[in-house]
């Protein structure tokens, strides 16, 4: 498989988190045929994934970021606790490679500290969203009828409210801490996985093996939990990857607006919030590093999601 063709495949599915309606990967299916000689499907997915250069780049960025945020502070010691008013908004240089912020915190050290929050909340919120969404979609799709109608109308209603407005209202009402934010973001983001899993369930529940379980007396809970969800796992994982990117963005947006993570805690969004106040001075080091971190991590998760979807399609072709 040529690199050029690979790039091509990935490039067509950019920006897919926006809407699930337009089928991705429109210029021909990925060439899964040649991989038929390989043994297990797991290894096949791994191979397709590794051949996809952008996916490797994505994973590398994520690994580096995690290392930067958690291992970095072990080697790069900075004071992120006490304010130092003698060292505010220093430009980069000397003992502060990225300068200092208006509280006198070292910006590079602050990036690591803030990144921990951003990544933790992003991953946890995506997990909440996926969990809630999978259950919601599977139950709705499996039981059908009035249950389905009601549950899906709820999804429709929530989807048509601009999510940021709802987030602002909730954030103002509850002045949430870090873990409340995880729940709030997660509960607003479960809509997409719910729709996807419902669609998968609708097709899966007509399959013979599901009918077989039903004939053998399997309960609804068993069918959904042991048979439908495991078979929809590919779709779920791909979506979860995009959910991480979205959750990081939502948290950053909320913090940028001053409603998310509160001082003295920080995430990348709240660092940008601080930086905005000093925009007139041209203090670029308060903006660009945090902005770059957000963009990098989001691009990385989008790359990984795209690659996972490609390899999933290969798997489907093998069936």
């Amino acid at each position, binding site marked *: 498989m040529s690199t050029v063709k690979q790039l091509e495949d990935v490039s067509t599915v950019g920006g897919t988190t*926006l809407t699930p309606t*337009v089928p991705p990967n429109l*210029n021909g299916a990925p060439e899964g045929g040649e991989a038929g000689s390989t043994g297990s499907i797991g290894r096949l997915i791994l191979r397709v994934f590794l051949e996809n250069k952008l996916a490797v780049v994505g994973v590398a960025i994520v690994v580096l970021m995690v290392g930067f945020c958690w291992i970095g502070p072990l080697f790069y010691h900075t004071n992120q606790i006490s304010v130092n008013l003698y060292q505010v908004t220093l430009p980069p240089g000397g003992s502060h490679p990225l300068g200092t912020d208006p509280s006198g915190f070292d910006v590079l050290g602050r990036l690591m500290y803030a990144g921990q929050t951003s990544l933790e909340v992003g991953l946890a919120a995506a997990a909440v969203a996926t969990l809630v969404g999978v259950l919601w979609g599977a139950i709705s799709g499996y039981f059908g009828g009035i249950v389905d109608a009601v549950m899906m109308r709820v999804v*429709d209603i929530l989807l048509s409210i601009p999510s940021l407005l709802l987030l602002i209202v909730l954030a103002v009402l509850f002045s949430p801490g870090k873990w409340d934010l995880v729940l709030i973001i997660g509960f607003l983001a479960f809509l997409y996985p719910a729709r996807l899993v419902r669609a998968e369930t609708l097709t899966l529940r007509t399959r013979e093996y599901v009918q077989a379980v039903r004939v053998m007396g399997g309960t609804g809970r068993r069918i959904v939990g042991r048979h439908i969800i495991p078979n929809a796992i590919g779709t779920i994982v791909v979506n979860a990857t995009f959910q991480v990117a979205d959750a990081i963005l939502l948290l950053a947006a909320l913090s940028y607006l001053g409603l998310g993570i509160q001082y003295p805690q920080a995430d990348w969004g709240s660092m940008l919030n601080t930086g905005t106040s000093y925009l007139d001075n041209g203090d670029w080091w308060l903006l660009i590093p945090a902005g770059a971190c957000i963009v990098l991590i989001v*691009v990385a998760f989008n*790359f990984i999601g795209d690659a996972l979807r490609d390899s999933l399609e290969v798997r489907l072709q093998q069936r």
Partner: protein
Amino acid sequence: MISYIIRRLIQAIIVIFGVTAIVFLLFQLVPNGAVGLARTDLGSRASPYQVHQFIIANNLNLPWWDQYWHLIANYATLNFGHSYHYNQPVATLIGTYLPRSLVLVTMAIVLALVVAIPLGVFQTVRRNKPSDYALTGLAFIFYAMPAFVLGNLLILYLAVYHHVFRPVVPDTESLGQMFTDWRSMTLPVVTLAAVTIAAFSRYMRSSMMDTLAEDYVRTARAKGAGRLRVLFRHAFRNALMPIITLLGLSLPAIVSGAVITETVFNFPGMGYLTLQAAQVYDVYIVAATTVVATVATVLGSLLADLLYAVVDPRIRYVHG
């Protein structure tokens, strides 16, 4: 077609009712109930009598179904309550702020379409060439770049370092004055449009590629139609259609983006109003703007769906 329109309208009405229900639920979540709501608006030093007056004036003493009924009846007649913070009817405030947001969002969408569609076509023509990859890379980056990062970067370089544009929208009441001032309007519009351009150009490219693989395009080629004729007469117009649906679906995201863009540029629109109100706990404004923004979004999506049915003669929505 008529039955489809009716069905879509009913759906839209259900969604709008659902949104009012959610907003009503949010009112109930204010700590300490009616008294708490009164205190958020009147302040902690309001006398018990004032609190009592507030509760009577806003029907907070009624049972919940009566309250919900009042909320719907009031919203239906564009009575959104009174903002104690601005000391104005919320409807008046929305009347001032909503048109600005509408113009901002419309300009951004127009810009996004005008840039993204030719970009997508260009990439299809030059597919798998360096320019295609470069644009794809850019699209990935801009797609991941939230408005508060892009907006601030633009301000930093084009307004602070080089004084090409103004960093904020001028403080003027006049709509006309605001929007003819290109030095202050360019950056907000570009900021809001960027994410949409990134997403739409990707889809336009995919859609174009998809269309070029269709049988009728091959037929056109076989009949000897020229390259450009195939591209524009046969493929382009068909490839445009998914973009209409996409536009309808991305409206909520665009409105969310507008909230951020307005904050970044101190642009006095609905998002700015909402955020300012939220920070002083002016619940009535926040509830009203949320409902109005959602209704606008729902109507926009409805319009997009209907437009889709009009432009695509293959689609005749039959019942089912």
